[in-house]
């Protein structure tokens, strides 16, 4: 126990200690008196002598008490009490400060709560400090399955390695019904639950046997949330048979909802998993799939392990490194040479934070910081104004002998009390807001505020308190008792400080508003980009994933051809083509290409699409050189951009090149097609490679209509259902896929717009408050001017001119800042130059005008005051 802690304890038991001390002193006095009497003294004299020898009882008691008190605590408590009294006396001020701080910190809190939940908080796993993640040398990339098996078997004495991957499945819970629903599942190795130390709520989890295909049906473990939703928590679910992607599975157990799985932080929003199936079952869930045998196929498999008792991380690392070297030798040319990495799961792995997460984090924290800055500047301004209003009170306290430090402390205590209230309110709003947003969908992470959130909130409150409190406190406690007592004129420096705050606020605000304008213009431009493809007249049947998962090769080709044949004869359809992936569908394939002369040189990344010969005409893509597919061996059509990148201005037709890393293919260019956006509107001139489609490996159907494609959606859906009654293949228009992209951009602009509006409101409030305050201080002067014949307009314009000076400086600084930021985010903008004159011009002009109005209102009001009343204001 430290002395400090003992003091605290003593403080809590103060009354008892007081009593005990009194009792002790009483005893002492009596014993002294007794001994004096024993020595022959008169009892009455002895009583007095004992007291004399003891000394001043009150002082001694007080000194004894002092030794228990925590230094300053009493006076801190006094400050807090005083702060509460002050706040109660002017509830309007307190409320304005608290609400401003709450608005400023809510965003900050929301961002931190999410970042904390997504990235910082370790997964909820028993003994997490013994759990590690094995990646394949690239962050967030697990090993391939055959590599995983080798690592698992050869490092078995150091750790127990499990593997898992997410997969979307179609489940038929009731085998008597046709109803099929999509579920989110995890493919898990047999030791997955053992490694994570997860026990079943009902039944059991997988055991080691789950790694091998059993003789009977496969096992499945379901999550508690899914168990509750679909089975109403019926324990009889154990042993029940369900169908996943048409394959029978037997439910063997339920794992608790508290187990949220292990998502790689920062990769994508973690989701609640509905059920778990053995890893091997991927081969029957997706027929023809041989990913478990591919040493060069990364398909999202992740590997985690638990160190065996007594094994150090360093030993696991060196073993893994040794295995990797051995594998490089054993499978030369069949696998990439890699340097696997073993990372403790419980610690934040900075390698997982990609450049993209970095940019997003910087952007969001930058924006929230700006808003917080504006809010703080406002509060500081209010504080300065209030310090003036309280100058008489402060002067009295100084005159009565309070030290300057004491006054500063008093002010800081007040700021901190308000900042703490505001931040608490802001964070509460943030957490509530997030919870409302995620209510629709259970998320796989806990949003409950933890110690980190609390600590961060306290830090924010402290910073806000310091940022908003120190200057007003120093200003208010400036020595100079007499002018304060006389309620004389405020020092001009105070106004200069306020001007600095206003300038800063306006600069931050211009930055945000300009960025909002840029985003909105970008969204506008995105909507106006010529998609080249006749998107409104293209109807698609998205069969890629569905057919790949369900049918064998020949069956797929038959189904696709049949759908194509039926759509072609539908009235209003002018042509049909096949493509994989579909344009603007959100999925994309890419590969590396190299010129045939430099097969080992650095490759170029290109997008790939497999299309039928009719595709180019259907998609309005003119062949600018050569021809479309003619059935020649290895024929490909490439985009103008790819042609230019590989061969410059030389004629690409007839040139050969290679694609792929391991399974290489040769290609001969047969034609060059016009550049067009295909994956996203942003990518108008991406290098593209079109290969002839092989329908037996799946694909999607695209139909060109003479009228709007949306009108034929229903008819097309009917035709598709006639071909594949059980399946639900998505019939859609390309335009709707594009609309989604544009609406995402617009949503982004809207969100920043909301922030911009908030910042604007805060900043204008600040300008108005400062002008009002400046005007109020000069009421007397206004009265003199009016009495001397100045008109209302003269006075108003004078006041406005003076308030606008910091605004102008702020706008200029803000525009410079916005130009810098905008340059950094130019890559995300659609068809805009980094410094878009329209966005910059309108935003700064708007802000300028709005500030003018904000300062004009209080100035006008002051200028209208009767000169007589104004003169008497002293």
């Amino acid at each position: 126990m430290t002395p400090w802690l003992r003091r605290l304890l003593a403080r809590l038991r103060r009354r008892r200690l007081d009593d005990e001390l009194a009792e002790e002193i009483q005893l002492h006095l009596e014993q002294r008196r007794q001994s004096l009497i024993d020595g022959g003294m008169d009892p009455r004299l002895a009583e007095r002598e004992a007291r004399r020898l003891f000394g001043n009882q009150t002082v001694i008691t007080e000194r004894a008490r002092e030794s228990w008190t925590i230094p300053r605590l009493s006076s801190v408590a006094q400050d807090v009490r005083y702060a509460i009294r002050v706040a109660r006396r002017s509830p309007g001020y307190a409320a304005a400060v608290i609400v401003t701080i709450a608005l400023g910190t809510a965003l900050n809190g929301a961002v931190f709560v999410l970042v904390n939940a997504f990235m910082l908080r370790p997964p909820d796993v028993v003994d997490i400090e013994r759990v590690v993640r094995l990646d394949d040398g690239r962050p967030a990339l697990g090993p391939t399955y055959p590599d995983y098996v080798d690592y698992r078997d050869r490092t078995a004495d150091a750790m127990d390695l499990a593997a898992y991957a997410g997969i979307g499945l179609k489940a038929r819970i009731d085998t008597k019904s046709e109803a099929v629903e999509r579920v989110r599942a995890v493919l898990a190795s047999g030791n997955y639950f053992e490694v994570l130390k997860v026990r079943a709520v009902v039944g059991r989890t997988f055991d080691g046997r789950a790694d091998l295909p059993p003789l009977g049906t496969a096992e499945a473990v379901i999550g508690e949330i899914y168990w509750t939703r679909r089975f109403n928590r019926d324990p009889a679910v154990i042993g029940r048979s369900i169908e996943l992607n048409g394959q029978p599975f037997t439910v063997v157990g339920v794992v608790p909802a508290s187990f949220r799985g292990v998502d790689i932080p920062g990769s994508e929003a973690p989701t609640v998993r509905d059920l778990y199936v053995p890893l091997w079952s991927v081969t029957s869930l997706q027929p023809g799939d041989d990913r478990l045998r591919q040493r060069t196929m990364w398909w999202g498999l992740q590997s985690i392990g638990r160190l065996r008792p007594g094994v150090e991380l360093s030993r696991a690392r060196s073993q893994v490194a040794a295995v990797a070297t051995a594998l490089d030798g054993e499978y030369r040319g069949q696998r990439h040479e890699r340097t696997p990495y073993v990372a403790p799961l419980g610690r934040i792995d900075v390698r997982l934070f990609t450049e993209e997460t970095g940019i997003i984090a910087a952007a969001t924290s930058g924006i929230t910081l700006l808003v917080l800055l504006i809010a703080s500047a406002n509060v500081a301004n209010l504080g300065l104004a209030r310090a003036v209003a309280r100058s008489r009170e402060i002067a009295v306290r100084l005159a009565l002998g309070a030290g300057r430090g004491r006054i500063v402390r008093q002010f800081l205590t007040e700021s901190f009390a308000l900042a703490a209230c505001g931040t608490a309110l802001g964070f509460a709003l943030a957490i509530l807001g997030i919870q409302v947003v995620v209510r629709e969908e259970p998320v796989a992470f806990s949003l409950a505020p933890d110690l980190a959130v609390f600590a961060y909130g306290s830090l924010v409150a402290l910073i806000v308190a310091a940022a908003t409190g120190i200057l007003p406190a120093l200003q208010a406690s400036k020595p100079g008792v007499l002018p304060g007592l006389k309620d004389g004129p405020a020092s001009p420096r105070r106004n200069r400080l306020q001007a600095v705050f206003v300038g800063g606020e306006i600069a931050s605000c211009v930055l945000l508003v300009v960025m909002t304008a840029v985003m909105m213009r970008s969204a506008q431009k995105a909507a106006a980009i010529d998609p080249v493809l006749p998107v409104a007249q293209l109807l698609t049947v998205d069969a890629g994933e569905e057919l790949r998962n369900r049918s064998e090769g020949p069956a797929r080709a038959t189904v696709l051809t049949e759908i194509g044949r039926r759509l072609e004869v539908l009235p209003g359809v002018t042509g049909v083509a096949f493509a994989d992936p579909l344009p603007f569908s959100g999925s994309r394939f890419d590969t590396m290409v190299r010129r045939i002369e430099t097969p080992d040189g650095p490759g170029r990344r290109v997008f790939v699409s497999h299309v039928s010969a009719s595709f180019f005409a259907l998609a309005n893509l003119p062949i600018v050189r050569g021809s479309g597919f003619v059935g020649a061996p290895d024929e490909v059509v490439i985009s103008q951009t790819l042609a230019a990148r590989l061969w410059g201005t030389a004629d690409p037709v007839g040139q050969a090149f290679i694609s792929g890393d391991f399974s290489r293919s040769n290609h001969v260019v047969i034609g060059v097609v016009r550049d067009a956006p295909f994956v996203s509107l942003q990518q108008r001139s991406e290098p593209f490679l079109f290969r002839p489609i092989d329908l037996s490996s799946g694909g999607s159907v695209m139909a060109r209509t003479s009228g709007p494609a949306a009108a034929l959606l229903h008819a097309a859906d009917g035709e598709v259902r006639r071909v594949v009654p059980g399946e639900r293949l998505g019939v859609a228009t390309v335009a709707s896929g594009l609309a989604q992209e544009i609406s995402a951009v617009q949503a982004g602009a809207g969100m920043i717009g909301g922030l911009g509006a908030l910042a604007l409101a805060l900043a204008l409030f600040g300008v108005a408050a400062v002008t009002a305050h400046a005007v109020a201080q000069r009421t007397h002067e206004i009265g003199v001017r009016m009495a001397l014949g100045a008109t209302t307009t003269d006075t108003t314009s004078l006041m406005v001119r003076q308030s606008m000076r910091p605004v102008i400086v702020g706008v200029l600084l803000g525009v410079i800042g916005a130009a810098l930021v905008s340059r950094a985010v130019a890559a995300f903008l659609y068809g805009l130059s980094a410094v878009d004159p329209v966005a910059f011009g309108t935003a700064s002009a708007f802000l300028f005008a709005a500030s003018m109005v904000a300062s004009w209102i209080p100035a006008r009001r002051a200028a209208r005051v009767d000169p007589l009343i104004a003169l008497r204001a002293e």
Partner: protein
Amino acid sequence: MGKKRTERQDLLPGTLDMLILKSLTRGVMHGYGIAEHIRQLSDEVLHVEEGSLYPALQRLQIQGWIASEWGHSVNNRRARYYRLTRAGRKQLGEAESSFGRLIEAITRVMKPAT
């Protein structure tokens, strides 16, 4: 806050704590006993304002150098008994040695070796 200490200067500053700790090396004592012990051993030369013993006892407790508990005195009254803790014993050792050095130094100044 800021009350000036009112110990009489009869005692070298800081020595009261040391004397209390030293007294307690003899065993468990109550406040009056400690005062008596100091008075008698010093042949009544050291004049301690008896009351100032109590704040000192509180201070030493907060430091963790002594501990106390309530017991019964000889005439069967409730009394608080103090005892030295391990940390207190260590502190006493340090105080004694530094005090020894101080006395030695003072002695050397007062009576320069001739």
